């Protein structure tokens, strides 16, 4: 049953879903919350593809599968391509009348982590967006290659420690800014792009539904806090997500038709970036005297981005 009829979280959590509870994701991983929500927000049939990553290795280890729907994984980079080609095949078979059920409604969704979305699969994603297929791509953004032990990706924020951008006596961790994937995807002319978070589950479900309903290539970046690599207690995933959205490290917004920007969540009390960072081990070194200025720099950057976002919303740009 689609989430539209679900009144509260309790009902949602007991909903009969197509993503089975039996998977090997870390306790406290937000990936499963996001995936379940996507699959619960529609009654339509789903064809899902996944890039290589945490979600993929944790949900389809032979002879088991967590997917009670059609699912395909090829490689690290090509989930956008495989699912859009399946969508093309669906179109042809519908026209030729060779489907088992020719009228069954189907949605096509690709999942990728930030490594496969921002880095290695960027070209495949861009190509699929440009071709204008009717599909939705959802990035599970945990800001690192968590599946392989926490290497930096181009989604890793400034100052975070990763195994390949290590903090130490001579380094404060990642030095480069996070790639603005949402703007890049909007610039493809997508009818709907958004950044959403699992703590704001109703707006996330609504965003997913919009993406599934609108015809054309849609992109959603979701924040997926990673207790293993961000280093926080698994029970605090949603608390940490609250800090992410309330510090505006992850603002929640959508862009319709490349220009109509709507901020979907305005924190009543904006908290500092410092408070967000203090809750995670990956930023621990920034609290040493020699690196404290990095926190200030990140704060300045986040303030500027929030300002820009508000101005874009006002200007509909």
């Amino acid at each position, binding site marked *: 049953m689609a989430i539209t009829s679900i009144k509260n979280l309790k009902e949602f959590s007991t909903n009969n879903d197509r993503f089975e509870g039996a998977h090997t994701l870390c306790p406290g991983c937000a990936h499963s919350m996001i995936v379940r929500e996507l699959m619960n927000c529609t009654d339509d049939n789903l064809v899902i593809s996944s890039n290589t990553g945490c979600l993929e290795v944790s949900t389809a280890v032979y002879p088991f599968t967590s997917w009670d*729907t059609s699912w*395909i994984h090829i490689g690290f*980079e090509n989930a956008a391509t495989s699912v859009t080609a399946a969508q093309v*095949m669906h*179109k042809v078979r519908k026209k030729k009348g060779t489907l088992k*059920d020719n009228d069954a409604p189907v949605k096509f969704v690709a999942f990728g982590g930030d490594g496969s979305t921002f880095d290695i699969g960027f070209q495949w994603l861009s190509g699929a967006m440009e071709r204008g297929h009717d599909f939705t791509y959802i990035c599970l953004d945990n800001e690192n290659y968590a599946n392989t032990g926490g290497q930096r990706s181009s989604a890793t924020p400034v100052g975070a420690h990763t195994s390949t951008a290590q903090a130490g006596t001579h380094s404060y961790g990642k030095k480069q800014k996070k790639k603005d994937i949402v703007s890049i995807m909007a610039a493809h002319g997508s009818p709907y792009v958004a950044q959403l978070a699992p703590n704001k589950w109703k707006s996330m479900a609504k965003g997913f539904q919009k993406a599934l309903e609108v015809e054309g290539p849609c992109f959603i970046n979701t924040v997926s806090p990673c207790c293993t690599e961000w280093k926080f207690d698994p029970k605090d995933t949603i608390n940490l997500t609250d800090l992410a959205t309330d510090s505006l490290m992850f603002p929640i917004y959508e862009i319709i038709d490349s220009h109509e920007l709507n901020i979907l969540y305005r924190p009543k009390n904006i908290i500092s970036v410092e408070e967000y960072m203090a809750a995670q081990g990956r930023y621990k070194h920034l609290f040493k005297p020699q690196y404290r200025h990095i926190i200030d720099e990140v704060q300045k950057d986040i303030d500027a981005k929030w300002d820009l976002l508000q101005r874009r919303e006002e200007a509909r740009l």
Partner: protein
Amino acid sequence: MAVKFDLNEREVWDGNYAASQALRQADVDVVVAYPITPSTPIVENYGAYVGNGFIDGEFVMVESEHAAMSGCIGASAAGGRVSTATSSQGFALMAEVLYQASGMRLPIVLNVVNRALASPLNVRGDHADMYLGRDAGWIQFGAFNAQEAYDLALCAFKVAENHSVRLPVMVHQDGFITSHTAQNVYPLTDEKAKAFVGDFVPVDDMLDFSRPVTYGAQTEEDWHFEHKAKQHKAIMDSMPIIDDVFAEFKELTGREYNRVESYDMEDADVVIIGLGTTVETARVAAKNMREKGVKAGVVAIRCFRPFPYEEVREALKDAKAIAVTDRSSPGGAMGAFFNEVSAAMYTSVNRPLVTGFVYGLGGRDFSIEEAERIFAEQQAHADAGHITTDIQQFSGLRGPKLGFFKTARG
């Protein structure tokens, strides 16, 4: 319904056009492609069929060959007929996903117009790309001319989609020599071709929601080995099915194909065994040599994978000296084709003398005279009763003679 395409009983087509016509007649549901010389005209022609309504399927031009094969996999798993074409660097870029296609047992047909691999950059034909695919778990057919590129593409769908096979198939033709040379081609009528290829019957259809399927699962040391062994068994077991398809095709057209083709082999002492257009050159040379009293014959590999060890051994069992021709730089080993033929012949009763020739790299012409020299050399080995040269030689190369590895039997 697609617009009717008028065909003459005899057409003048190059290999690329012939392959694209086979795709049209096979009523392919989805072609996902990226252009690369010399296979580009296959997808361009297909684009023309789309533009003029000659096909009912969809044509998706993607941003790279990796994406092309990735798309073929996704589309094939969604339960329809899928095909594409590529060459050389594009084939190399596809390499990762070629293994995924066969591992998922998807019956994709890939037309490979053979071309050298850089560096140095080269657009001409050699077999480096074909060799790169030899361990990828695909069935590999070799066409020696435009007619065969057409015929084998039709056969490829029928083999790939056989439910006992369920493996992807490559149809190779030589870049430019076959792909861009116009020849007489006798096509089937659309009706006959369609009936021969048959309807696509999906297995594990992603679009059958009454039975969800998971494609591309992970297996580690507990199951990976069994999966790969099963896949190997499937490709080995495809040999009689390939034979059946060729037999059915012969019944329909009168054109005969065998996994190993033999020419003038009834009493041949000296043999050139080759792949691709080289075979036709060697056949002319063999005829010339026979006029000079040399009992020369030619053996050609129609099906490079699964490799026809038994048929090669049978074809060469009475030969005295065999020259194996590798049109790919071996990079620090004997030629891969030499190794296959040697493996086949080592288990034969007579164990003929086997030498290898690396030739024709980057489109260097392989001449009739060159083939005749190779035959003469084989005759010298046969007369001496042992190999009188290096086992590996480079034929048609500028500068001093280049050769490696001597026999211990002389």
